[in-house]
């Protein structure tokens, strides 16, 4: 298949810098989750929300498998499985959807926000979920707000599901009276959110809103005074919608590792004109603590070679952390797509000449990986065991999406995730 760009990049956003490095753009079989899987962490994050996938049996099976079938409580997601009858005519499908939503809301009166999530089949048959949401809102709002987005695998990969989900909330965010505020965009573990909140308080930055909120019903306000600081690097559409509602983006590296976290906080501090001394004083205890914790793993990782398969779009910031703070050598950094608006600050920090690849032809990429024999390969679950069987140490990337890895106090934890497979190999004698 021909190599072609996987993402349309608005030309105006491309800066000339280190980012001139050539990117290998591949098209072929992709070993990446689709956007539906974002539900698996979003439903834990926003506990008053329910995610109803309108899709096929495959979609139901997919999120069930991705969730590991291990959730103790009843999941806050489900699937309206399309059957043959639904494919026959659209009017029918709409009535069916209303019936399923009635059934669901009856079973779960605790639902405050219901996301109708589009899938590949519902996109292909052009089932209009926006219209369905509008229709259902007429019946259920304000008790239940119904929103819609697409997590389909023909349009989104893995973490783009969160982008689409947050994007669907942007139009209903309340208008703030344009007073200055900081909005941290991208879902974070609650514990990390609290850490950041304490740091912002110490710096005197505020009010701070986190988006998504812990409860979908408590939407943060937005207006001309809102400054956006991204906690996750995969929120292209959300950011653009937020900007169109008047907010300003504070471009920054992402808060992975000590360097990334400092740069990220500094970006906010500068926007709030916090003076240098106060900033240094505020972060010093945590930076020192993080340095001590990180050192142990840095020693284990330094000089080792890493190969990153595309998965979550966290790859570039992670690669920056691994190379600059852990001393690792980057063989290849694969990512599903590159949005220069959100990634330039990170790409600028990568070592000159880093092999970046966008998109995937998994067989060819596996060939390159085998050829390079990296010390550690970061990849999805479908590839991890087969690569282990070939004698390669792997770090499955899904843990990087689910674990708290942002901020100072998690910098060492993040490094530990990469050091652990190596340590394990060192210990095993059989």
């Amino acid at each position, binding site marked *: 298949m021909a190599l072609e760009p996987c993402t349309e990049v608005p030309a105006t956003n491309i800066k000339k810098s280190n980012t001139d490095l050539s990117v290998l753009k591949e098209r072929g079989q992709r070993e990446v989750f689709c956007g539906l899987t974002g539900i698996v962490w979003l439903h834990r994050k926003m*506990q008053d929300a329910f995610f109803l996938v309108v899709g096929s049996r495959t979609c139901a099976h997919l999120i069930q498998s991705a969730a590991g079938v291990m959730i103790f409580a009843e999941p806050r997601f489900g699937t309206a499985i399309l059957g043959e009858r639904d494919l026959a005519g659209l009017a029918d499908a709409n009535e069916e959807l209303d019936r399923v939503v009635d059934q669901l809301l009856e079973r779960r009166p605790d639902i405050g926000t219901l996301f109708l999530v589009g899938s590949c089949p519902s996109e*292909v048959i052009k089932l209009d979920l926006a219209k369905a949401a509008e229709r259902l809102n007429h019946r259920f709002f304000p008790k239940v707000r119904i929103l819609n987005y697409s997590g389909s695998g023909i349009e989104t990969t893995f973490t783009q599901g969160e982008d689409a989900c947050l994007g669907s909330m942007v139009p209903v965010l309340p208008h703030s009276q344009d007073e200055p505020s900081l909005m941290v965009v991208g879902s974070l573990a609650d514990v990390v959110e609290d850490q950041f909140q304490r740091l912002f308080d110490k710096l005197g930055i505020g009010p701070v809103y986190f988006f998504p909120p812990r409860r979908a019903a408590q939407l943060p306000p937005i207006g001309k005074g809102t400054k956006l600081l991204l906690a996750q690097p995969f929120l292209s559409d959300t950011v653009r919608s937020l900007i169109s509602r008047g907010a300003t983006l504070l471009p920054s590296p992402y808060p992975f590792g000590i360097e990334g976290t400092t740069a990220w906080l500094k970006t906010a501090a500068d926007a709030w004109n916090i003076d240098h001394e106060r900033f240094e004083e505020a972060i010093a205890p945590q930076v020192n603590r993080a340095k001590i914790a990180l050192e142990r793993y840095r020693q284990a990782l330094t000089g080792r070679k890493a190969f990153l398969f595309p998965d979550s779009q966290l790859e570039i910031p992670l690669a920056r952390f691994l190379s600059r703070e852990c001393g690792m050598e980057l063989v290849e950094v694969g990512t599903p797509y590159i949005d220069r608006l959100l990634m330039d600050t990170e790409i600028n920090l990568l070592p000159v000449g880093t092999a970046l690849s966008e998109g995937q032809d998994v067989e060819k990429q596996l060939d390159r990986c085998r050829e390079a024999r990296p010390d550690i390969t970061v990849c999805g679950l479908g590839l991890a065991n087969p690569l282990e069987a070939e004698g390669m140490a792997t770090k499955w990337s899904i843990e990087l999406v689910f674990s708290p890895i942002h901020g100072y106090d998690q910098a060492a934890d993040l490094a530990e995730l990469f050091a652990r497979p190596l340590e394990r190999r060192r210990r095993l004698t059989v």
Partner: protein
Amino acid sequence: MELTLWTYEGPPHVGAMRIATGMEGVHYVLHAPQGDTYADLLFTMIERRDRRPPVTYTTFQARDLGGDTAEMVKTSVRDAYERFKPQVMLVGESCTAELIQDQPGSLAKGMKLPIPIVSLELPAYSKKENWGASETLYHLVRTLLLPLVPPPNTHKPKREAHIRPKANIIGPTALGFRCRDDIREVIKLLAEIGVDVNVVAPMGATPDDLLRIPDADFNICLYPEIALTTCNWLQRSFGQPTIKTVPIGVGATRDFIAEIGKVVEIDVSEALKRSQSDTLGNWDVSRLSSANNPNASRLPWYSRSVDSTYLTGKRVFIFGDATHALAAARIATEELGFTLVGIGTYSREFAREVREVAKKHGLEAVISDDYLAVEAKVAEAAPELVLGTQMERHIAKRLGIPCAVISAPIHVQDVPARYSPQMGWEGANVIFDSWVHPLMMGLEEHLIGMFREDFEFAEGHMSHLHTAPSQDSRRESLVTEQAIAATGSSNQAVLTPVAQAVAQTVDGITWSVDGEAELKKIPFFVRGKIKRNTEKFASDHGISTITLETLYEAKAAIGK
């Protein structure tokens, strides 16, 4: 449209993957968008397989839909052929590709590759995983063997008496329940009665092996959900009889041996006799000294041992694929002395058989793939043990009931490292252990009954079940959990039917202080049942307040 939270089966193309992944030399080109590659990790993670499934996905995107997705199919088929050099290629589509109607099978066939192409048409919106596996195996076998089918009325030469009969074992797949170990156990059983194994398929077979299927005298339909269609076709086309008994449990294993004896006219009486005599102990020194001596199961003896007395009449609820559910019903009732209080399956194709068994036990079978419906039935039946799938493990956890897994769908913990078949004599041993262990051991339960005043055995003492809260405390935490979910308001309507079934008190009946105090003295694991029985007794006798006396009157009238 159908609302689901968990599903028992994946789509039919996952069934096809189970066939392809079990085999060698087969490659499957699947016309599908990128998200469908999730299926790979079912095999690499749940089964810890050391190789990716032999599947190439076309990975089309929205932008391709206006263009030439058919060309992507051809490119993928060509690349997959060149890279993997399979002996046979399966070509099919997933649910989304079905909608864009590229007909990948025909496209691939038109490419004139020098290998057989099996075109799979698996309607994703009306069929499911096991059906997909069954069809895939059937079409694969049929494609390869059709040229070898003898003309009608061809006389099949009779096997000479001195030649050992040969069997094919049909049905074990990737991601099946304990298939890996069952195969070994069945081969051992066959060796014991003098039957050789010709081909095991699909697990471990190559296309060349499939071509040798007609050489066998008969076929063993080991997993009917997967194998029956193929076995029926082989019977029609090659005159190979099908062994339909599935050897799960001691009785079924005996029947299995007897059926083979009858079908291929060999003497199996020795093996059957051995399996009987061994039930008395298996302590014979000559047996212990010889590792080669064929074994019978210990289940019959263990089941007769005094320690097992407490198993008598344990109320068990069974749900799974039809094969395992039917086998479990027989073992539970005939070999362990349990009482069946519910049985069901998600395998609609075998609903009739399951209904018949249910009827025999005075029950109505649950034929459903609706997880929520199954959950409601389990709660209603209030069993003491649930035998089910990974989904029933969820249900049982939630209700605080012990559970053992007997059928797919499974999780990684159901693919143990140790040898743990379900079939044959050893399978029966494994089943005895794995079903009985979740229950409290006999003596311990008796002691709790006898020393129920002892503070060590007070409320919440759960023995092996220490991780699972008692039904009462579980109900409370469920209520709390749900209340938190309901924005802090303790909305009773949030309670699921499950919790209601546990909490329910017959209308208008109250418990007196002494009655309730006495009820609390009853060990928690039977308390729910006694509470319900007593309330029913009160209701039947027009008693509105249950006193200590009512409790004992009810006990006398109803029994334990």
